[in-house]
């Protein structure tokens, strides 16, 4: 056997403008092993892998394959070295069939015809137990089918260094287990496998070694069998932390939103929300847990008036008058005109919550610009508000007139949450508000949410980290495939219990 490692990185550095995404990163992967790359969101895992697969070009550093220095200028170079990457955002052409996507970029010698390719796809599928129709168009496929296509694509090319970027984020536990067993088989075939993740239990159950990145810097690589969850966490976040969120007992809770059997269909007619019912109360934080893409976004958008519903009721009870309003089929503007003070921190911060090219003050205006009868904008108050938020939430920015897209992720989020809270809402919805944020910023957001709760606001928190959900929320609603699979008390519930509910996708149909 070759004594050199399959892949070795030395002092890789990559900058985007003034942001250093990777700094002096070293990494080694051997054949016949699974290496996990562990790190928080924004720690530079994906950027690093993109340099191996030729999407980005490093500013500095060296890459060695089998002990020989190589230059990877493009994905084509990466293929040459038998490197295959499965991106988190699938690289598939929607209007092409699976087989067409799989042969994309291959020459005739690699795969003569689509028909022959389809045949080989069937063979690979049989070998690993995939269930895929090579003639099916991508835009008709589900997320996990698309991922399968991506995996087959890499196998088809005979890659022997495989990189998977957060492959389990969109999978059910069963699908995850299946994927893992496929990966183990490939490892035993002598392939080198790199898997990017921030889920500790996956790291522990799957990988042979773990490399940890923190804020773009390489921390260390350890053998999985010789480490444990606590040590990995410490390496990942820097200092030893126990999640210690200040959670107060809910006081004077009162029903604020009563959701009744709402249903929502996608354009293709797939049920995105299936008879969802629950109640959100003022003075408590209601957590929403579920695998990504189970209807969380549609649910929040439906309440905010951005998603058309087939049927059901969204009843809002005004805390002052006690009057009930049905918000279904109302536009965001109509909802506001009813006096409903609803704030919404969407998942897509720069694409929905804020305008990236506008400065902080102008982004403050988004919510308030309509005020007053004048046809001209009032610029003073938004500017004052911007300055207040910058000061109180410690936003790091050159000034109020800096376009928000130039701020770092955490600061962007502070601007957004700050604005949404400033309108003293009665309902506050936040979707993945700490995604990509460092620990300090995350805690600032938790505290802001808690303060809102203490002020009697009904807070709805969509999260992905179950530990956070359990420590921050009062109740947790679990959603699976658009259906409510359970509502639990966050103080007594166990993580495993929620995990089980999250995956209860097909049981309820009967």
């Amino acid at each position: 056997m070759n004594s050199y490692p399959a892949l070795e990185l030395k002092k890789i550095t990559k900058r985007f403008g003034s942001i250093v995404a990777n700094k002096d990163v070293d990494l080694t992967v051997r054949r016949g092993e699974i290496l996990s790359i562990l790190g928080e969101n924004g720690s530079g895992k994906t950027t690093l892998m993109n340099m191996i697969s030729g999407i980005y070009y490093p500013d500095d550093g060296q890459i060695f394959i089998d002990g020989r220095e190589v230059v990877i200028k493009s994905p084509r170079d990466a293929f040459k070295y038998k490197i295959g990457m499965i991106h988190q955002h699938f690289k598939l052409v929607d209007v092409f069939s699976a087989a067409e996507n799989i042969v994309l970029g291959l020459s005739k010698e690699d795969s003569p015809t689509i028909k022959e390719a389809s045949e080989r796809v069937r063979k690979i599928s049989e070998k690993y137990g995939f269930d895929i129709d090579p003639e099916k168009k991508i835009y008709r496929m589900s997320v996990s089918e698309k991922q399968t296509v991506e995996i087959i694509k890499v196998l088809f090319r005979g890659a022997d260094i495989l990189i998977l970027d957060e492959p389990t984020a969109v999978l059910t536990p069963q699908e995850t287990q299946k994927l893992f067993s496929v990966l183990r088989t490939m490892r035993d075939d002598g392939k080198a496998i790199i898997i990017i993740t921030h889920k500790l239990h996956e790291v522990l159950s799957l990988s042979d070694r773990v490399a940890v990145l923190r804020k773009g810097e390489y921390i260390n690589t350890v053998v999985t069998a010789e480490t444990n969850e606590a040590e990995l966490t410490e390496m990942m976040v820097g200092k030893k932390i126990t999640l210690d969120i200040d959670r107060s007992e809910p006081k004077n809770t009162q029903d604020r939103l009563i959701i009744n059997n709402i249903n929502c269909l996608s354009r293709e007619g797939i049920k995105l929300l299936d008879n969802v019912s629950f109640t959100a109360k003022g003075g408590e934080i209601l957590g929403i847990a579920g695998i990504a893409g189970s209807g969380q976004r549609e649910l929040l958008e439906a309440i905010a008036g951005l998603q058309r519903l087939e049927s059901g009721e969204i009843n809002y009870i005004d805390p002052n008058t006690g009057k009930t309003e049905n918000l279904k089929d109302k536009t965001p503007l109509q909802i506001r005109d009813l006096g409903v003070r609803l704030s919404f921190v969407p998942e897509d911060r720069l694409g929905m919550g804020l305008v990236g090219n506008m400065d902080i003050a102008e982004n403050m205006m988004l919510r308030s610009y309509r005020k007053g009868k004048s046809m001209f904008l009032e610029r003073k108050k938004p500017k004052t508000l911007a300055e207040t938020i910058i000061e109180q939430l410690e936003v790091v920015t050159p000034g109020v007139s800096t376009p928000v897209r130039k701020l770092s992720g955490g600061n962007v989020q502070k601007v957004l949450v700050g604005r949404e809270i400033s309108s003293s809402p009665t309902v506050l919805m936040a979707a993945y508000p700490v995604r990509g944020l460092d620990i300090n910023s995350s805690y600032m957001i938790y505290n802001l949410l808690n303060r809102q709760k203490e002020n009697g606001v009904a807070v709805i928190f969509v999260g992905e980290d179950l530990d956070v959900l359990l420590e921050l929320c009062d109740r947790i609603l679990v959603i699976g495939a658009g259906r409510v699979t359970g509502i639990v008390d966050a103080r007594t519930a166990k993580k495993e219990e929620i995990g089980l509910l999250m995956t209860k996708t097909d049981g309820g149909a009967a």
Partner: protein
Amino acid sequence: MSKASEKAKEPLFHIAKRPSMPMWKSWLIRIAAIAAALIVCAAIVVMLTDLNPIEVYVSMFNGAFGSKRKIWSLLQNIAILLCISLAVTPAFKMRFWNIGAEGQVLAGCLATAACMILIGDKLPSPVLILIMVIASIAAGALWSVIPAFFKANWNTNETLFTLMMNYVAIQLVSFFITIWENPKGSASIGIINMNSQAGWFPSLFGQKYLINIIIVAVLTVLMYIYLKYSKHGYEIAVVGESENTARYVGMNVKKVIIRTAALSGALCGVAGLLLVAGTDHTMSTETAGGQGFTAIMVSWLAKFNPLLMIFTSFLIVFLEKGASEIAMAFRLNESIADILTGIILFFIIGCEFFVNYQIIFNKKHKEGK
């Protein structure tokens, strides 16, 4: 296994997005681009005519500023081009690619001419002009609202739709020219109301173009204020940047699209009015003369800032005038103006790359070997 053994070679350079660049530096790049373009243009003219380049520039300058009459005509041309550029701007800021200004201007021309011909003799002048204003604005707006309506409701591609609307307008104008033909068989409508001058804009201080220039100057300031300080202007900017955000904060995106397109078309209608009632006093399919397309350049070059458009429209008109003077003076074909304009545009368009991106030369780092 074939070429994996080749020695590690680094590419010479790679391209990265620039974080940001100070204002003065980006304008320096643009000015340098224009200077480079002028040199290339001069080289081409010299090649074609064997003249020395200084002479070429002098005659260009003469073409634009050579006499009082030329200066007025320069200003008049700037006014019209600027007016159309102002018109396309709100739509472009909203990322509504209105390349139908040509047709919208013609629609305005047609409405104006129709008023002058059909009711020119029946009404007192102020009333007639008021009706002309309303008609031209309505016609221009209608021509742009039709594609906007489909864009707003079904996301119909507006670039292609507005483009097609140009030709529908041209044929409509041809149709009415054959109806209003004067004299019969000439395939043109001649000077409208030659004797009564009904519907003609009056001369101010003896200058027949002054009124056009004043109107456009006022419009420029108004448009600047509208885009920068009004709530509508803010909505346009938000919809242009991200429709999702606009919807999220409760803007009625459809309404904003249609309203803005209507404004855009209305201003084109005004340009048509200025062309027929204030300048030509006649109408042909060539009245807009491709300015609907040129205006897109003017607006884009000025980064959609109405005040900067004064300079960019000046630049383009100056070039055209200068080039046609060269053509005349040295007995060249007039189309040389289009060639030179094209070259200068290429340079200005291309130079934006150096504002937005930087080229990083890779340094060697293999001392160890």
